[in-house]
């Protein structure tokens, strides 16, 4: 497979090395002379010096063939968006992957249909949230294009779902419980499984359905007619 990587910083350089070792054809573009010198020592002719948002630089790197994948991994979100747009619209590159540096810019990538994206800050944040026992719905995996999200929610002692069979819990139509992690191990079969405090429920859902799922597990079914 031919992969073109724009941006030869830590992300781009390590990606180049890994893909190269896997036997793929890789070209990496880097605009800073200092970084390029280091890349050239390791990757020789597979490293290219230039601004990867300039069409002639992209063409020198072989974008006209086109590559199966273009990875926009620069430290500048605007550059990454433009690289992906040019790769797709001008050169018919079938797949682009973009790095998001500032999580606040994620909305711009989404607005312009640039996907998939990867944001290290957001991922670390999700991992930290994972450690905080709260009734938070923690995203584990987001497949934006497919309209699917895999999330985790921790069940604490006060949650309505404690002591109930997983099968009994009424989850919204847009969600499905797929596993329960108990004492660090995932239970795939949910038959006859009663939830306990400390369990972590893994669910898949449509993006935006987090709140309804949280209420279903933590608050339980709403009682329309409270007992007299």
């Amino acid at each position, binding site marked *: 497979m031919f992969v073109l990587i724009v941006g030869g910083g830590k992300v781009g350089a390590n990606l180049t090395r890994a893909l190269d070792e896997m036997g793929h054809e890789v070209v990496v573009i880097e605009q800073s002379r200092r970084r390029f010198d280091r890349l050239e020592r390791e990757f020789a002719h597979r490293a290219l010096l230039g601004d990867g948002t300039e069409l002639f630089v992209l063409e020198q790197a072989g974008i006209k063939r086109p590559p199966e994948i273009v990875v926009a991994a620069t430290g500048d979100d*605007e550059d990454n968006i*433009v690289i992906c747009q040019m790769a797709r619209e001008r050169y018919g590159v079938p797949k682009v992957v973009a790095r998001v540096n500032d999580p606040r810019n994620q909305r711009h990538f989404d607005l*312009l249909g640039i996907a998939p994206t990867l944001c290290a800050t957001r991922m670390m944040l999700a991992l930290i949230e994972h450690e905080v026992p709260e009734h938070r719905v923690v995203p584990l995996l987001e497949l934006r294009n497919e309209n699917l999200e895999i999330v985790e929610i921790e069940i604490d002692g006060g949650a309505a779902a404690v002591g109930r069979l997983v099968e009994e819990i009424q989850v919204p139509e847009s969600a499905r419980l797929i596993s329960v992690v108990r004492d660090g191990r995932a239970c795939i079969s949910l038959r006859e499984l009663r939830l306990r405090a400390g369990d972590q429920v893994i669910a898949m859902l449509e993006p935006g359905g987090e709140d309804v799922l949280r209420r279903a597990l933590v608050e339980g079914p709403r009682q329309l007619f409270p007992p007299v």
Partner: protein
Amino acid sequence: MHALVIGCGRVGSALARTLRDDGWEVTAIDEDEDALSRLGEDWRGGFVVGHGLDAGVLEAGGIAEADAVVVATDGDNTNIVIAQVAKTGYQVPNVACRILDPARAELYSDHGFTVVSPIKTAIEALTGWARSVSQER
């Protein structure tokens, strides 16, 4: 009519002042607070300090009700992205964007906003001038 001018350098500030003189309500946006001085001491339009991709900054500048947005920061790619955010994200009816690189200017000429490329214009003007000189001889 309300115009938002994003990037208050030489081009942006001159344009903001002219629009203001023409009777527009103008808000300028620039990352650098000192850019305000380019607008002159008598500037009576709005001025917001911040990055043109920051939704809070754009909204403070009134992008939701703007009739026109002009994007003229010193970064081509920044301009290209802001112009698309204004057009697609905020549905601003009129968006113009400065793109120095002629190749990218051409590529983005059909994305729903007006592209102005000073370098392309200079090349065309100078080419025209050289040809006229050669015809005179």
